[in-house]
């Protein structure tokens, strides 16, 4: 990999770091997971919905008045509504657990900042936050993120999801040239 990374705290007992799985095999595994969740629950995979609910849950603790006076947020966490009481939050908890266990098992668990060689970790964090904000906003706008629309919708042949996926790749390619120094 061409990325330079800064190590903060090396793990005490290192497991031997294994390379990533072949991308096609990983795709087949992910495909079976996606099929499984549909077959057994009727729901697809998702990520941004859970993150959104966790954010609303936190906002409700800090500024309950704001949540209770913003129509879009009321839908998820207004009044007696519990924002965390949703299967989509459970999926996110699972993603964190599964990601953690997998990274640990394959010796890839390491506290570090993945960044390009030209920028500092702090710049990388700010940039990551800005990118995340765009993605979070976009995922709400599209009613789904790369998982909810990109995986679920395309596999079930939704027209809107295929349009979404084309726009997603287009968005990345359009901006790639202008931000290349962030990465390489």
């Amino acid at each position: 990999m061409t990325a330079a990374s800064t190590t903060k705290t090396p793990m005490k007992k290192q497991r031997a770091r294994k390379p990533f799985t072949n991308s096609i095999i990983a795709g087949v595994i992910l495909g079976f997971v996606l099929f499984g969740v549909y077959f057994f629950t009727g729901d697809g995979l998702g990520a941004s919905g859970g993150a959104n609910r966790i954010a609303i849950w936190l906002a409700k603790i800090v500024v309950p008045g704001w949540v209770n006076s913003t129509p879009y947020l009321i839908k998820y966490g207004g009044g007696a509504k519990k924002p965390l009481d949703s299967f989509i939050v459970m999926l996110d908890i699972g993603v964190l657990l599964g990601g953690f266990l997998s990274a640990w098992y394959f010796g890839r668990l390491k506290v570090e900042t993945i960044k390009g060689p030209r920028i500092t970790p702090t710049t990388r964090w700010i940039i990551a936050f800005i990118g995340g904000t765009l993605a979070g906003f976009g995922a709400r706008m599209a009613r789904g993120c790369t998982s909810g629309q990109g995986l679920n919708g395309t596999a079930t042949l939704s027209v809107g999801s295929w349009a979404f996926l084309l726009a997603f790749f287009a968005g990345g390619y359009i901006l790639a040239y202008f931000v290349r120094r962030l990465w390489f």
Partner: protein
Amino acid sequence: MAPFDPVALMGKPMGYLVFVLFGMAFGASLEIAGFGVAHKLVGQFYFKDQTVFKTMFTSVLVAMALLFLTIGLGWLDYDRIFVPPTYLWPGILGGLLLGFGIIIGGYCPGTSLASSASGHLDGVFFVLGVMSGGLLFGSVVDSFWDFYNSSFMGRFTLPEWLGLPTEVVVAIVLVVGLLSVWGSDLIEKAWKRREGILTQEEIKKDKRILSIVSVALLAAAVLILFVGQPTLTDAWNRNTEKQALLQEGKIFPSPEEVSLAFYDPIINPILLDVRSERDYNLYHLENARRVEEKDIPALYDELLQAPEGSVIIVMSNDETKAIEVWKTLVAKNSINAYVLEGGVNKWIDTYANGQFQKIANHPDDALGWVIPDALGDKWSSAIPPQPHNYGPFKYDVIKLQKKAPTGAGGCG
């Protein structure tokens, strides 16, 4: 028939555990693909690393093949799995923003969680951004509410858009998808060759994996074409539960029971009259909607969306034609439908006896009364009589059905 509702079946703690387990499998799949590392993701957009495209498309093709194969075999009900509804332009704008997000921030919402879980701090900041972006959206969406809800097309699928049978579209997507996965593999190899990091071993290994997966998916495509997609008749023939109900005659509410449902505040009766236009014009129940048998498939989606508490009552003059239509409606258990006992003939016998002259020995399912004027529902007996006292409403045949889950969706 799948899908199941884990929370309804096993209660909340166990049901939610199922979702945690699927989430874990999802998170691990993302991690092993390398999606916890930003450079693996953004490399896609610099023609360096095609993992995003290859993994994502392979997973979509595999899932699609398995979904439509099981749907075709009648093991899974396509009507009850979550298909993201189409809001075309908000979806496209959102997709663009997510594309900007990945090239600037290095992740998308799911991969940033996997990245955080593997200890990457940039992933953590991305997740915080996703959460902030969602809250920001919530606080400003009112100013573009109309746009956010524009170009709504409902559950709109590629087969409907293209006007082709579902199995044909699936086969086409599988073939085109495989070609593009091979194509993106070539792009990746070309870059690696230029960088001098391509080994013969890798070429051979990738080729073997791609070939095996391609053969499997092409075989699935042929199988899906061969099996086809279930028609409502197929679904009926497999539905032993509803066949038994029909056999035991437990699908025929009496005219009295249907009248009661009319005034029940928690029941929303939808009356479907499947008789000829002539008979309908002569006499029909108030609020009954006349439908041709050929229009039932088009009506099916609408009935599927009917609010909870909806009870569909199908009627013909006697019962024969109504039963045929009923079979197609209940074939997949998604719709709560019944057949008016004895049809319109019995209704008239019950509520308008003496008003019309009876036709002795009329052919089956023909109108059995001489109706002098085409007054439709303006006959006093066409309005069900009000019950003497309101409630408790008790039924022998009609059962309120909890609405079949149609999936709350991936990012709800």
